[in-house]
């Protein structure tokens, strides 16, 4: 196989080598967070984390654990770089974006370290492509200090019902208001558009509600433009966890099953609009 004809020397110089038999297991997940051009890649012994941020108010993280990869070799404890995500996705889909039954693109991702480009070896049907993408100095991702001890309200829903609500949301509304409460209306999504307001209420007894842990009534508004990117993640997912902390910061976690049935996670953090109403 062409990919194994690399010299021994090269192998020794790579600080990160990650291989996938099916590149879609990476590209599909990354598509859900491509709302900005640049992403920060962080590799740890746990796996790969890809972070995209927008105006310090929104952060998305994609987690692809070590177990997903056919090979995952890390010579250092932490390897991080910034790269153009759009270019990376174009390369991962270089053999065509559409999935053809029975064929898949194999990927070997290699990185020599600071200052070196990210090298991608892609193979499909005996044809090999080598891509070298320049890397940049990684920007420190925002630390929202969202920790489970500060979580006030948490629900886990099956994505199916949320998908329906999000597809119908009134886009003339600037904000999406989320109300979570131990009493009625339990979990409510509200919009305030040109024709009036609309509310989507999920009962805590609904069979779509897998977990309902709300300790206090909280109502927060988030800019619609900041929540829109998460709809791609919602579309891929089968379950979603929605949490808010005492500051009204919103955390959405999406459980995604890839082509091989393995689990990956997508996470979004969103800052509330300035006037936070807490009752």
């Amino acid at each position: 196989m062409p990919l194994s004809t690399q010299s021994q020397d090269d192998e020794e110089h790579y600080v990160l080598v990650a291989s996938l038999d099916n590149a879609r297991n990476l590209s599909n997940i990354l598509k859900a967070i491509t709302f900005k051009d640049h992403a920060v890649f962080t590799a740890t012994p746990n796996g790969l984390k890809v972070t995209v941020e927008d105006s310090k108010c929104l952060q998305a993280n994609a987690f692809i654990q070590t177990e997903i990869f056919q090979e995952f070799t890390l010579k250092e404890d932490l390897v991080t770089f910034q790269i153009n995500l759009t270019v990376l996705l174009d390369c991962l889909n270089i053999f065509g974006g559409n999935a053809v039954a029975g064929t898949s693109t194999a990927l070997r991702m290699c990185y020599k370290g600071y200052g070196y480009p990210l090298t991608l070896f892609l193979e499909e049907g005996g044809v090999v492509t080598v891509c070298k993408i320049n890397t940049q100095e990684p920007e420190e991702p925002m630390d929202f200090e969202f920790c489970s001890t500060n979580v006030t309200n948490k629900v886990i829903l099956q994505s199916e019902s949320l998908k329906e609500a999000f597809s119908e949301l009134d886009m003339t509304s600037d904000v999406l208001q989320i109300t979570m409460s131990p009493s009625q209306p339990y979990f409510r999504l509200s919009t305030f558009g040109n024709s009036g307001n609309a509310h989507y209420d999920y009962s805590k007894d609904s069979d779509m509600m897998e977990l309902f842990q709300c300790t206090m009534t909280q109502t927060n508004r988030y800019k619609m433009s900041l929540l829109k990117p998460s709809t791609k993640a919602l579309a891929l997912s089968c379950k979603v966890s929605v949490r808010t902390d005492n500051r009204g910061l919103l955390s959405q976690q999406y459980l995604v099953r890839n082509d091989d049935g393995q689990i990956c996670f997508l996470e979004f953090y969103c800052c509330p609009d300035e006037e936070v109403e807490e009752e």
Partner: protein
Amino acid sequence: MQCVVTGGNVKVLAKAIHSLSRIGDELYVEPQEDGVSFSLQLTVFLCRYSIPDGRNFRCKIAIKSVQSVFRSLATLEKTVEKCHIELNEQKDRLTFTLHCKHGLLKTHNLSYQDSESLQAVFNKDTCTNEFRAQPRVLVDTVAHFPPSLEEVTVTVSDERMWVRNHVEDETERSKAMLTELCLASDEFDHFVVKTPNSVTFCLKEFRGLLVFAESSNLPVSMYFDEPGSPVVLSVTDGVLEGNFVLATLSDDPSLPKNKTGSIAHAPPSPPPDDFMNDDMDSYLIAMDTSVASGPSTAGPSASTLTDPCTSKLPEANHRTRTHSEEEEEEMEDGSERPPNKKFRSLFFGSVFPPSPKMSTQPVTTQEVLASDSEDES
């Protein structure tokens, strides 16, 4: 005002709203004794209905707002169990609450404007002409007209209905493509003509209604009297009754006028579907004669033309009803129209002046041309 719509009726209501959106931008909501009216002009009968006081109230709302409540018809069918509609006058809100499966509740609070009560004056029961057909028949008929066409003219006799595109100007008429379809009375479930007449109304609204009728598989009823009075299109099943009242052009010189309204002035009735007699010669001569005996072309007065035709040449008029089968456009009843004009557009490019001399011309040797662009002189 509060009411509840349950089960499959929610989808019917949604389809009705989408259908109305093709016609207008604003929806008038008016609670009535036996239901809520969403005009133009749709009355929905609901399962449970209560109105605290009998005060007459009507509001106006942008139809797009209501459409957003019933956005996806497919999901509506699968997930919505019932729809609760409430009018809150104090807060100026019309609230639609959709109770869906899996404990999901969708509430839409729409703002509206007060509006005066508008009631189109019409009474289906007194209309002299009444028809009912399966929606497919009418859908297939209007399919022949271009989407940009604004108005159609419907002409009826005791056995037939003609539908053709309406062209505004006299001058344009000679340049425009005229499309005409003829429907026999047996294509209708119900066909009663007491006043043979023509009415011209808006096609766009008609199409909107047909979409709704076809998707709900409901027959369409049509009622009208005369030009100027509205034409009422109606669809009904046990639960729902929709009446679309369309205005008609009040005076159109190109339309056949029936002065007395009696059947005596109706076109002479030949054997209805006798297309076998293809005698062009006699036909041409007959037409020629009818032109010659009538008044000048300037002012078509249908009844005066009709009489000579009817009385002098009944046989010839019989032949005017025959058609060469390859003609796609059916000949309208010639005796009620300015015959030379119609005649010209179908058979000949030349103009037939009302002169007795013409009757001796060997008209059969003339070429059959498409309608020319010369003005009628």
